[in-house]
């Protein structure tokens, strides 16, 4: 039993991280007042750009595979920012329906990345020669119980993202930027009257979501997937669910994505765990989605959703 748990933990955490950073991106966007259901597409974009950069660099530079990966992650992040500008422009400047614009983002990413990768590889998949290798944190991994669970077989990206989450929580709560961003998502007219440039804040919110979601897609690539296949299998949507489940708070999102991470891991490995063998796998696979639906119902009365998220901000409206 213990060994199974020891095996599952690192895997679940690995699975959590892409979800976590993507949902955190969604948080910045929605807190600024823009709903972003294009997270899925942004992840795909990150996965594609990351795979493209890394595979090219690794071929050209076979001795520095790890450096190539870091450069790939950075490139994906920048590409995500640029790609998300499409959504920001549509929803902030053109008053487009944010859900439709987000859908367009998903479709564009899904179509164009595969189109391009087919031009490059023919099959449409881009394979990495090397991904990140897991490592055990020195000393800490020797701590009983916690050591094997949390500090073994970890990735640098995991620690980086956890740091980003803590930093985000601080920025949102304790800095003028955070106060202004939240005001834009709650009541943009108030922010505007106080001299805050609502459009700019919303652009920033969407761009952060683009950066984070794209990074999420790239991390998925270099830790779990190992190749770009034109899809992230609904993880972007699952991140959106985690955002709601976590009630638009960084630490809430951390808890929600951990939950999803573990749920998915259980579903994937249920056949080799004696305790789970009797549960039909379909139940385990459905579990995250059904739980999200139930959570939506439970939170429906006391939702902490930013009030102006999804609303077009028209500064003429008084």
């Amino acid at each position, binding site marked *: 039993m213990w060994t199974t748990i020891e095996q599952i933990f690192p895997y679940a955490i690995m699975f959590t991280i892409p979800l976590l950073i993507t949902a955190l991106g969604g948080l910045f966007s929605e807190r600024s007042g823009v709903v972003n259901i294009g997270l899925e597409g942004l992840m795909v974009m990150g996965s594609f750009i990351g795979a493209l950069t890394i595979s090219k660099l690794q071929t050209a530079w076979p001795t520095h595979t790890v450096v190539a990966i870091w450069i790939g992650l950075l490139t994906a992040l920048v590409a995500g920012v640029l790609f998300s500008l499409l959504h920001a422009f549509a929803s902030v400047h053109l008053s487009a329906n944010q859900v439709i614009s987000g859908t*367009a983002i998903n479709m564009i990413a899904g179509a164009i990345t595969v*189109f391009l990768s087919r031009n490059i590889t023919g099959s449409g998949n881009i394979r990495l020669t090397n991904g990140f290798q897991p490592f055990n944190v020195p000393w800490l991994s020797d701590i009983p119980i916690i050591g094997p669970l949390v500090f073994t077989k970890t990735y640098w990206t995991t620690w980086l993202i956890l740091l980003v989450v803590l930093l985000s929580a601080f920025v949102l709560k304790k800095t003028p930027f955070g106060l202004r961003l939240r005001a834009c998502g709650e009541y943009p007219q108030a922010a505007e009257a106080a001299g805050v440039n609502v459009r700019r804040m919303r652009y920033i919110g969407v761009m952060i979501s683009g950066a984070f979601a794209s990074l999420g897609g790239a991390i998925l690539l270099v830790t779990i997937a190992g190749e770009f296949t034109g899809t992230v299998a609904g993880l972007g949507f699952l991140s959106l669910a985690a955002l709601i489940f976590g009630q638009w708070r960084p630490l809430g999102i951390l808890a929600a994505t951990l939950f999803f991470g573990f749920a998915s891991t259980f579903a994937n490995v249920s056949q080799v765990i004696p305790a789970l063998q009797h549960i039909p796998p379909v139940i385990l696979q459905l579990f995250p989605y059904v739980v999200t639906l139930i959570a939506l119902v439970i939170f429906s009365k006391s939702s902490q959703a930013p009030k102006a998220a999804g609303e077009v901000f028209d500064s003429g409206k008084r």
Partner: protein
Amino acid sequence: MRNLIISLCAVLFGLIGGAVLMAATGHDPLQGYKYLFEGGLKNSSRFGDTLATGTPLVFTGLSVAFAFRTGLFNIGAAGQMLFGGFCATVIGLNVDTARPLLLLMMIVAAMLGGAVWAFIPGLLKARFNVHEVVSTIMMNWIAYWTIYYAVPAYLKAESVETESRLLPDKATLKSAFLSDLFGGSYLNMGLYIAVIAVIVIAFIINKTTLGYELKAVGYNRHSAEYAGIRVNRSIITSMLISGALAGLGGLAQFAGNGANIQIGVLPTQGYDGIAVALLGANSPIGVLISALFFGLLYSGRGFMNAMTEIPPEIADSIIAIIIYFAATSVLMDRLITRIVSRRRASAKAGTGTGGPVSGKEKA
């Protein structure tokens, strides 16, 4: 009129975007488009295939458009289509009876399956005010995994794990008449059902009290409530109809264009339905036309791919660009307004009237 111009502009931009993509990847756009359109229109067989490819899109497009009229964003057409198609397949594989009755049962099963799948988000919206976008997305994945396990468990093919057994011919919408008429195309009776659906939905939206109620709820649920319209019931009704339409799309796909159901994919027609509805300005006729246009892109891409080096995903890319421009129609709307008002202003300068004569006052 304005909607038509906007849609045509979106298509134009989509085609330009596609051309840029082709050129950027070292292909000849003109040749690409030539083969793309030839592939969908060259002869009666290919034209028939275009109509057939467009058929499921008519249903999912209608599904999204109908919900939209009630102010609901049904992003779950994919799941409803999958489950509706699954229900129809279950009937088709397990019931053995005369063909008309069997097909009728399959139609009903597809509609029911889709409706049930849409009922849950509708209920959650009406009862708990849960936003339908998130709940329909969740329902999509629930459908995906349900089918993923149900098909191998109950409808497994002999050798292949990832799809169901083939439906017998009498349990599909295949029509020898249509097929012969279009030179051996796989065009089938799904098209008839699609045309009927367009007419029925147009009638409901424009001529009935039900349509009046649903549109009132869509435009302004507060005034609908004020007028005594039961808003919650309208939301559920609308989702049921929307889901039934998507379910029919599943029938047209899995028992019309194809003859079995596959696992591990969410049908792309679900998302494409959003694009179809948007491009068709949520009107049934508009949906029909834009679905057939997308059908053309999808059915011609194979021929294009065979004749050139251009990957078939160019069709998806063009559609994706179209939906972005349709979504940002405000841009074109403003442009049109500016052109119109400039023209008016210059016309006015000639006659020399000042100020508004009647009608609009300052609100």
